[in-house]
């Protein structure tokens, strides 16, 4: 049943500083509201328990994509449309662009944001696996200042994360070290487009003299959080991507993920498809 709309409020701060001051003054009272593509669905379904929102969509401080020699830095309000339009991202971070293009249709891509995808913390979100595979770091700001932390480890459990009640996610930073790497992104859903993932795998791999020198492997929809599979990466390091290595990596991966049966798929299917995607990635390494 629909929510009773008059009970909900959204306040409109004029600047990021105003927003952070309000969050500090009344911690826990206000939750950020960006493009609304997740929150409005819950509102309509009568499943949005929190009533007080702070509109961050209009805060230009949280927009923009900038690049220097070492990093590309994206404002938390970068939309999926912005991601796809950026030439540096298309060239150096193709998985992020692919994730953006496979998230909803254009009307969703015009409103959905990378920051929202992270903070909404759905394990089925499509950009977080790509962000993890690209070693993203995130910046959290409060009226006390800012701190950068690795995105890996930010989520601690289903919808749980290292975010203070007075903090906002402000920026995402990607190291520009992807030259020569193999990028592999595949989302498996009921259809090829316009579907929520049953399994999503993003991986980056680098080879040296026939051996795997380094990989980053992240999966969505197979655990309470989007998982960066560090043990699987460790298993692969320094080995040839042969049958034996692939089997060992699949065994390790099976221990790192914890898929469940739910409305979209089954644990068995998700486990098998995760192994298949990992195998497909490793067979493409060159």
């Amino acid at each position, binding site marked *: 049943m629909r929510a009773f709309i008059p009970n909900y409020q959204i306040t409109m701060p004029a600047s990021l500083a105003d927003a952070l001051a309000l969050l500090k003054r009344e911690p826990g009272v206000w939750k950020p509201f960006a493009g609304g593509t997740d929150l409005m669905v819950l509102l309509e379904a009568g499943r949005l328990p929190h009533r007080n929102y702070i509109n961050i969509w209009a805060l230009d401080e949280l927009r923009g994509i900038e690049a220097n020699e070492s990093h590309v830095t994206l404002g938390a309000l970068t939309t999926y449309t912005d991601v796809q339009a950026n030439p540096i991202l298309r060239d150096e971070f193709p998985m992020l662009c692919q994730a953006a293009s496979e998230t909803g249709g254009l009307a*969703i891509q*015009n409103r959905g944001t990378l920051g929202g995808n992270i903070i909404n913390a759905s394990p089925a979100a499509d950009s977080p696996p790509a962000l993890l595979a690209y070693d993203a770091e995130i910046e959290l700001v409060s009226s006390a200042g800012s701190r950068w932390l690795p995105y890996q480890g930010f989520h601690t459990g289903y919808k749980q994360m290292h975010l203070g009640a007075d903090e906002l996610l402000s920026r995402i930073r990607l190291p520009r070290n992807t030259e020569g790497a193999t990028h592999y992104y595949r989302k498996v859903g009921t259809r090829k487009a316009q579907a929520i993932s049953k399994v999503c795998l993003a991986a980056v791999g680098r080879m040296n003299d026939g051996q795997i020198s380094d990989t980053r492997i992240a999966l969505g929809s197979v655990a309470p959080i989007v998982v960066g599979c560090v043990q699987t990466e460790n298993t692969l390091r320094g080995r040839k991507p042969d049958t034996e290595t692939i089997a060992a990596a699949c065994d390790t991966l099976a221990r790192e993920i914890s898929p469940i049966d739910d409305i979209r798929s089954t644990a068995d299917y998700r486990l098998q498809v995760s192994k298949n995607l990992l195998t497909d990635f490793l067979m493409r390494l060159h």
Partner: protein
Amino acid sequence: MTRIRSTSSAFICGKSFSMQIEFKVNNKVHQLDVFPMARLLDVLREQLQLTGTKEGCGEGECGACTVVLDGRIVNSCLVPVAQVNGAEITTIEGVAHNDQLHAVQQAFIQHGGAQCGICTPGMVLAAVDLLKRNPQPTEDDIRNGLAGNLCRCTGYMKIFESVVQACRK
């Protein structure tokens, strides 16, 4: 484009919250008292009687409620009206110029692009948006441009063909 730049204007009345907003719809300025989290879709249909914008799924999957917000198509069921203060919106009612239908609308009529009509406003707006960004789209561009708009009648081919024909004009 005017951005939202007001300070908090929601005021408390019991447990209800309301605010005044001003925005432009189809080139006409409106000032309205609204509940801040009311869906733009409902405000357009119920307060402005612009019922060309349809509700299908109410969760951003079907595109029936598509409108153009500050130059970009959005699902109006997912936009709280507080966020359109100062914005410019085009609905299906604003696509034709006076009595002159847009080429996309003409093509939908000529090539059977509409059946029950519920998806048509969203399909037309998505196609108009596509042609504005990309006047010579490939067939894949057209499919991508229409993605996110679901039709339960036509099987999509008539809609697709209508857009192909509109591009040739």
